[in-house]
């Protein structure tokens, strides 16, 4: 469904062309979840921005990105707007930057559905409640009437996810959606994101610096370094037989807290 072919990007910085992406190719099939893992400066977020055509102004881009056969780079004006509004949805790292601070959450969801998909406001209002239920929010009316600053980061990110799935887009683009959250909140939000995506059969491109986090929700993972994809594979394969030295370093840098995990898994097996 999403097909990125030989995507390259350079950015002019002080008269020098700095390569940001080199020959990045990746595919996401309908309903599939693909991870893009890398550290800062690896180009993972730029790849995502290219798909939405929101790359920096001074960037030169080559290569081909198609979404259901439609060449994204040839889209202009209304067609581009429609692609952004209905075919893909983005979940960014900082929900505070996404939600208008002076509008209650309800308005964010309603306006989103009304403007992007043309859902009548009355209908959108009903649907807003359903969506919040879907992302595991319990006190729905309270949250709908709240302003962004009254809610925690985890709660807001759920609202953003609700907004993203409202139009049932074909593709979710998630850019480090849980990096700003506490670890326990992260686990809940990831669980919710994964469930919603599966239920609605949406594809996802998940960008993160955390290999284990990507492995928990992705069918396949691409490891990026310095603007290139250096290794790709299913999570188990990357974990057990990493081929590229960088993937190995990435794994070894975080000896996961396995002690309790192994104890517990043994317990579970025992039961």
């Amino acid at each position, binding site marked *: 469904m999403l097909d990125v072919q030989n995507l390259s990007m350079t950015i002019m910085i002080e008269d020098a062309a700095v390569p940001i992406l080199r020959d990045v190719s990746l595919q996401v099939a309908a309903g599939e979840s693909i991870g893009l893992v890398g*550290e*800062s400066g690896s180009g993972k977020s730029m790849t995502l921005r290219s798909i939405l055509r929101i790359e920096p102004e001074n960037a030169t881009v080559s290569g081909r990105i198609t979404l259901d056969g439609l060449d994204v780079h040839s889209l202009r004006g209304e067609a581009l707007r429609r692609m952004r509004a209905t075919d893909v949805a983005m979940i960014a790292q900082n929900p505070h930057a996404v939600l208008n601070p002076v509008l209650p959450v309800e308005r964010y969801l309603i306006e989103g559905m009304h403007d992007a998909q043309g859902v009548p406001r009355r209908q959108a209002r009903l649907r807003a409640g359903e969506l919040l239920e879907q992302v*595991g929010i319990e006190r729905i009316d309270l949250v709908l009437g709240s302003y962004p600053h009254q809610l925690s980061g985890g709660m807001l990110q759920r609202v953003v996810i609700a907004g993203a799935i409202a139009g049932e887009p074909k593709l979710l683009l998630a850019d480090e959606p849980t990096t700003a959250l*506490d*670890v*326990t*909140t*992260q*686990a*809940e939000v*990831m*669980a*919710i994101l*994964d*469930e919603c995506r599966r239920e609605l059969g949406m594809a996802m491109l998940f960008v993160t*610096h*955390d290999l*284990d*986090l990507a*492995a*928990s*929700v992705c069918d396949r993972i691409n490891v990026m370094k310095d603007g290139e994809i250096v290794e790709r594979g299913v999570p188990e394969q990357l*974990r057990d037989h990493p081929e590229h030295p960088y993937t190995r*370093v*990435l794994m*070894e*840098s*975080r*000896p*996961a*807290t*396995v*002690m*309790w*995990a192994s*104890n*517990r898994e043994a317990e579970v097996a025992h039961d």
Partner: protein
Amino acid sequence: MTEAIISVDQLTKTFRGKRSRDSVTAVDAVSIAVQPGTCLAVVGESGSGKTTLARIIVGLETADTGTVKLGGKTVARRANRRTLRARAREIQMVFQDPQSSLNRRLRVQVAVDEVLRAHTPLNAKQRRARCRELFEQVGLEARHLDAIPDELSGGQRQRVAIARALAAEPSIIVLDEAVAALDVTVQAQILKLLDELRRSKGLTYLFITHDLSVVQMIADEVVVMRRGSIVERGTTAQVLGDPQHPYTQLLLECAPRPGWKPKRGVIRALREEIAS
């Protein structure tokens, strides 16, 4: 058992809001003891009070009640310039964000030089030589002395911050999420450096972190904080291997690891157990 080098007794700090219901007790009757040459990790999420605890110990914040003893001596509750200067020779701090840990308008050497000037009788030439030595100890090169922060990577800046902390030759270093803002591969390098420095210099660390993987790599003992209180303490192996408190279990359950899946049911069950 030797005498603890950091000994905190019944420390309490409440931040008062305009209305009484806005008041938050960030640290609530917390006691800890750290043996010389060891690393104690203080683990918690945002709002746990772990950073406030660290700030009280170094003197950036004043506790309402309770005492802090460093090297057997009780430190003044309300710090002033003179007491801070004395305390700084015992305890130093490395802050979280490499972006703001150094003045971006000055050469990085100045940050280290400033500390040498405050705590040692060295002259300019000797200080320059000492800076070079300290840079070497943290894995930086002489050419980095005259760099400005923008010319260094996040990891290099954090190395300068460590050199700055070492300059006063303290026996204790408080590390406040000192690797949280770094890439994982850089994190591993910095943690390795910190571990080596601790062994070679016999330093004591108080490591404030939210990250259990960091704890596993560097800490001998752990305290787990939640909403201002310590809910569990023990050796790293005990706490990570056989956690007793449901909150510690929740933290461990939620930490991504190979083969991990986030499970809403398990999280909810543990949350209910914590609440009860």
